[in-house]
């Protein structure tokens, strides 16, 4: 296709605002963050901030805990979203839009209000404990709040829509003929799902998993309220370094480690998808 000069100019004009916005408000701060992590105030390039981070037992525990919670939330989201997305993608348009609205409801609720709602469910006087006690299953309330389980529940509720939406979008593009052909060749429903639907929706899976994982490892409000300040995650550790002891280099190191981790996970998912397909 041959582009005319006017067409090229139009493309530049159309792209420029978004490009400038991303450059000024994302790329430049990212470069500043990176430089802050390796160039402390007294000058000179150093990686001691990174060495200190990985040498610290606390940092390693917090990092591994954050990774673990991120992976669990992503895994649960995948398992819960696939069947739901498959059904949604094959529903009549009107019913689908209504159900999609319900799916994205958590994203439309204020983060603090949504997280405090978990207190009503998981607290000592919460719904679950009241039910367990009234059924005589426990005598004293069980502690659900301020545990990793509470954080996983809260993050899964929050980020589930980010997995469902790309999966629905990917599955809508799978022609019904392909599924019928698989069945006519003897594949049962499970085989069709695993060998046809999953590979053909892997773009949505990679996008959704990246969004859910990134959201989970960088979330602040939900872990802070449901986990409490004692159950540190990377985001709450970053707050400590930045706000409590004003160690901006250590805070920048944590931020860069978080960014590199999410990029690495995205890369792994992409590599995995290519091999699968």
């Amino acid at each position, binding site marked *: 296709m041959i582009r005319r000069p006017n067409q090229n100019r139009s493309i530049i004009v159309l792209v420029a605002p978004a490009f400038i916005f991303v450059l000024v408000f994302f790329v430049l701060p990212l470069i500043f963050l990176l430089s802050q992590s390796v160039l402390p105030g007294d000058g000179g390039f150093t990686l001691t901030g990174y060495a200190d981070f990985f040498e*610290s*037992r*606390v940092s390693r*525990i*917090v990092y591994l805990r954050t990774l673990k919670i991120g992976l669990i939330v992503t895994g649960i989201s995948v398992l819960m979203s696939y069947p739901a997305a498959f059904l949604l993608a094959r529903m009549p348009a009107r019913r689908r839009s209504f159900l999609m609205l319900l799916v994205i409801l958590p994203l439309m609720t204020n983060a603090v209000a949504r997280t*405090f709602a978990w*207190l009503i469910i998981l*607290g*000592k*006087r*919460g719904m679950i404990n009241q039910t367990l006690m009234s059924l005589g299953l426990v005598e004293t309330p069980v*502690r659900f*709040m*301020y545990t990793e389980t509470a954080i996983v529940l809260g993050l899964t509720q929050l980020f589930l829509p980010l997995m469902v939406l790309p999966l629905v979008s990917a599955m809508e593009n799978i022609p019904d003929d392909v599924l019928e052909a698989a069945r006519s060749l003897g594949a049962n429903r499970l085989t069709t799902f695993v060998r046809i639907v999953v590979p053909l929706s892997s773009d949505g899976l990679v996008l959704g998993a990246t969004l859910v994982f990134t959201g989970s490892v960088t979330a602040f409000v939900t872990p*802070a309220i449901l986990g*409490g*300040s*004692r*159950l*540190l995650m990377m985001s709450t*550790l970053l707050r*400590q370094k*930045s*706000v*409590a*002891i*004003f*160690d901006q280099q250590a805070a920048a190191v944590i931020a860069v480690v978080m960014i590199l981790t999410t990029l690495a996970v995205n890369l792994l998912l992409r590599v995995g998808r290519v091999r699968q397909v």
Partner: protein
Amino acid sequence: MRSKPLILLLLAALVLGLAAPMAVAQDTQTLTVSIWGFNLDVLEENVFAPFEEMHNVDIVLDTGNNSDRLARLQAEGENTTIDVVHFATQFTHLASEAGLLQPYNPDLLENLDEVYDWAQDPLGNQAGAGYTVNSLSLIYRADQIEAGISSWADLLRDDVAGYVSIPEMSTTFGPAALIMIDRALAMADMEEGEAEINYDADLAWEALPQLADNLVTTYIRSSELTTLVQEEEVWVAPYASFAIGNLMNTGHDLSTVVPEEGVVGQTNMISITAATDKVDLAHAYIDWFISHDVQEAEALDLIDSPVNATVELPEDICALLTCGEMLDTMIVLDQAEVSDRLADWLERWNEVMVR
């Protein structure tokens, strides 16, 4: 043309209209005050509006929490427009260490002599004057803890295990709680008398794993403690005096106690920035804030506990503030000692808490 004089007249009116406010603005100088964003309507009535009228000045507010405002002050350096700044003592110490403040001149503060000694110069370098005091004490559920609570060491008791919360180490009162537990443990080993404050808090650090086992969680903001008490997750905790109203509103059977080892006092301070050239006006602002009239008005509105010793309050008001007999047992910590240890303490604290 007939319309020409009319246009000239309109132009003249426009120029005069624009110029008049500018002339007024040139006569009125501004004082930029960095302060928390709480109770500003009451402060406007008790402090800002009368000061503006007395000194023909416009007060411009820069609001935010301690750390945000300190970070801004650091980033702006000599170019900051902030003239005076309100900080908790530990943040005043950090700002002072960073060279962001200039010492006040006691000769320019007529009301300073009326202020309690411990609030006149809390950091000992005239980096700022204390204008209010908060205290850290203990609160507990009287209906759940039959034996009651009388000491900081009671937070380690088995009968409260699983129902304790304490302020996180990174907060204003985090180190203070640990130091008071240390004092309580030291006094428990003594037959009589009082233990000195040990800023290394060795006994408390030894006991921290045991305390950690008793904790539901730690808290960063007083509002978090209120929620924990409200939801019956917590029965006993150290609390900051300014949170008492919200805690009592939870509707539970709560009792406050002045522990045997005393309460911790923490002053909020007003300081003059190094970059300001409105030094006289800044001193006038501090002097006004620590004056009898302002201190009394702020106390009666339950906003700030007074540091001006001439203020006498009704008993019911005093009971809700840090004043009266509580001041006799109040310990004011040396923030320089605390701040110097904070980074190391935070790492040690995390070591225990991540178990």
